[in-house]
């Protein structure tokens, strides 16, 4: 953990803040949900954000005119970033998604900017390594096993307890996460995940060849957004996930805030997530945690060193008066906006993909938007594009946002709006080219 010891957080004083450039480098994949909200936040707050990506030939100007990197070559990418910083300095370097957080930490370290240790960020990104680290640190984790796909399964699965959940070690958004209740289901799930891993574009062989298996944890699930400053965690919001997530796939649907958990449970949640951050060595910037709560306490599913995805950051306006991306950018600059909490509740539905195929059209959008307390219905997939449901899929059909006098009313509005939608899907027959 030499890297963790070497990590420093630059104290931000009023003098340095006034002298420092308000310029941030954001390392973002070309298809990130988060890029647009970050750019909007930067515009709102008058912050200069340069996008670094692999999308040299993108039709989107922010990518095409940004910095171009090869994420498969961190050292070359680091040199590119350092050259740009020499030309015009950055006040911070952030990674919008898991793919860029390690490089962001590496670059911030080289530039002497506040950062997380790269080891910590790697732990936060790799589910198998994270489990081991949490267990070492005494943070409760379920029984878990690591399957090496380069070796026969026989001999690796004898001790596995059921029900269990299989997870790729380096994918997000429930992609490839499958519950198995017996050996047959486990074997089938392994084969399915293996195909997914081969096509997922993961650069590291170990990430393509490893599956984490852990005992299924029953309970109520929440997502938590927070900000770390010098290792201290500030909870920005807790999202309740009111629908049970018992598998076989774990599709995110409703996120509702404020949380209806009682104060002692929220406190326990905060303490457990703080312990996980400390175990990884995370010290600076945004964290997104997923946890389950049952009679045995709080269980960490993951703590990622990034924000939530899926356009959900805008919901924080209810609890803070700013979008999540505004808070993260300002935090990176050592600035703090006034937090203005609005009364009432808010929520989002990540619209599930009902079936695989080609999206023909979504009917009922206008009716859904007319449901009281619905703010917006966003259909993210364009007509004529392929729909891929979980566990193979990596994106949602769209989002419905609600704001209401209470969390209960927000949730009811989202359910009513979703009931208005009819998704028309055409079958897809994929050709094999020879």
């Amino acid at each position, binding site marked *: 953990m030499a890297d963790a010891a070497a990590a420093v957080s630059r104290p931000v004083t009023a003098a340095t803040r006034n002298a420092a450039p308000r310029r941030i480098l954001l390392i973002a994949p070309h298809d990130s949900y988060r890029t647009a909200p970050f750019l909007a936040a930067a515009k709102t707050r008058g912050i200069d954000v340069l996008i670094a990506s692999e999308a040299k030939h993108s039709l989107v100007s922010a990518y095409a005119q940004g910095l171009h990197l090869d994420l498969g070559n961190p050292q070359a990418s680091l040199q590119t970033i350092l050259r740009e910083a020499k030309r015009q300095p950055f006040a911070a370097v952030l990674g919008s998604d898991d793919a860029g957080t390690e490089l962001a930490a590496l670059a911030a370290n080289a530039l002497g900017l506040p950062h997380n240790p790269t080891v910590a960020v790697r732990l936060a990104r790799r589910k198998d390594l994270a489990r081991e680290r949490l267990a070492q640190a005494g943070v409760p984790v379920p029984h878990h096993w690591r399957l090496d796909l380069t070796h026969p399964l026989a001999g690796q699965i004898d001790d596995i307890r059921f029900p269990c959940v299989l997870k790729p070690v380096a994918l997000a958004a429930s992609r490839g996460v499958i519950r198995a209740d017996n050996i047959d289901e486990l074997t089938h799930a392994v084969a399915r995940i293996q195909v997914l891993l081969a096509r997922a574009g993961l650069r590291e062989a170990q990430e393509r060849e490893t599956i984490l298996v852990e005992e299924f944890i029953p309970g109520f699930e929440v997502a938590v957004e927070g900000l770390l400053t010098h290792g201290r965690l500030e909870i920005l919001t807790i999202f309740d996930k009111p629908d049970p997530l018992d598998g076989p796939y774990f599709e995110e649907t409703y996120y509702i805030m404020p949380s209806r958990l009682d104060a002692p449970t929220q406190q326990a949640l905060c303490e457990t997530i703080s312990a996980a951050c400390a175990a990884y060595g995370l010290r600076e910037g945004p964290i997104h945690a997923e946890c389950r709560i049952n009679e045995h306490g709080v269980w960490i599913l993951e703590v990622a060193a990034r924000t939530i995805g899926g356009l959900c950051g805008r919901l924080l306006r209810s609890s803070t008066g700013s979008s999540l991306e505004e808070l993260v950018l300002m935090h990176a600059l050592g600035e703090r906006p006034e937090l203005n909490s609005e009364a009432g509740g808010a929520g989002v539905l990540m619209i599930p993909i009902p079936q695989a195929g080609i999206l*023909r059209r979504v009917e009922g959008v206008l009716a859904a938007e007319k449901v009281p307390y619905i703010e917006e219905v966003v259909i993210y997939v364009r007509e004529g594009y392929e729909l891929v449901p979980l566990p193979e899929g990596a994106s949602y059909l769209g989002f419905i946002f609600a704001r209401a006098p209470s969390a209960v009313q927000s949730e009811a509005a989202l359910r009513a709006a979703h009931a208005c939608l009819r998704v028309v899907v055409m079958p897809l027959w994929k050709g094999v080219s020879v």
Partner: protein
Amino acid sequence: MAAIEYSTRIGDAEMHITPAAQSQFVEILASADDEIAGIRVFVSGGGCSGMAYGMTYADATVDKDYDSVLEGPGFKIYVDPVALNYLQGCEIDFRDSDFVFNKVFQAVGGSGTCGGCGGGGF
């Protein structure tokens, strides 16, 4: 100036459908709703992982001036002009539960994993 004639009929030299594929198309269309006009063959991708070829239903809104059509016994295949360029001379077969596109344009090399050709997510 005389108008240029543009044929929207696909000949066998442009796209050949094997008997096995023809049978499959007939079977697929037999179970389709009345609003379905035929099968649309399309091309997608074009990045470092190469072109992808697929098919879906073509509904009654097909553009008869724009789409080219291949008409066989009990089925119609619709292809837009851009896709047809990539499909010139191809053969569509059906083997082992898969539609197989023979003799089609393919990219050479490439990892299939880069983001360089992505169009962005917003």
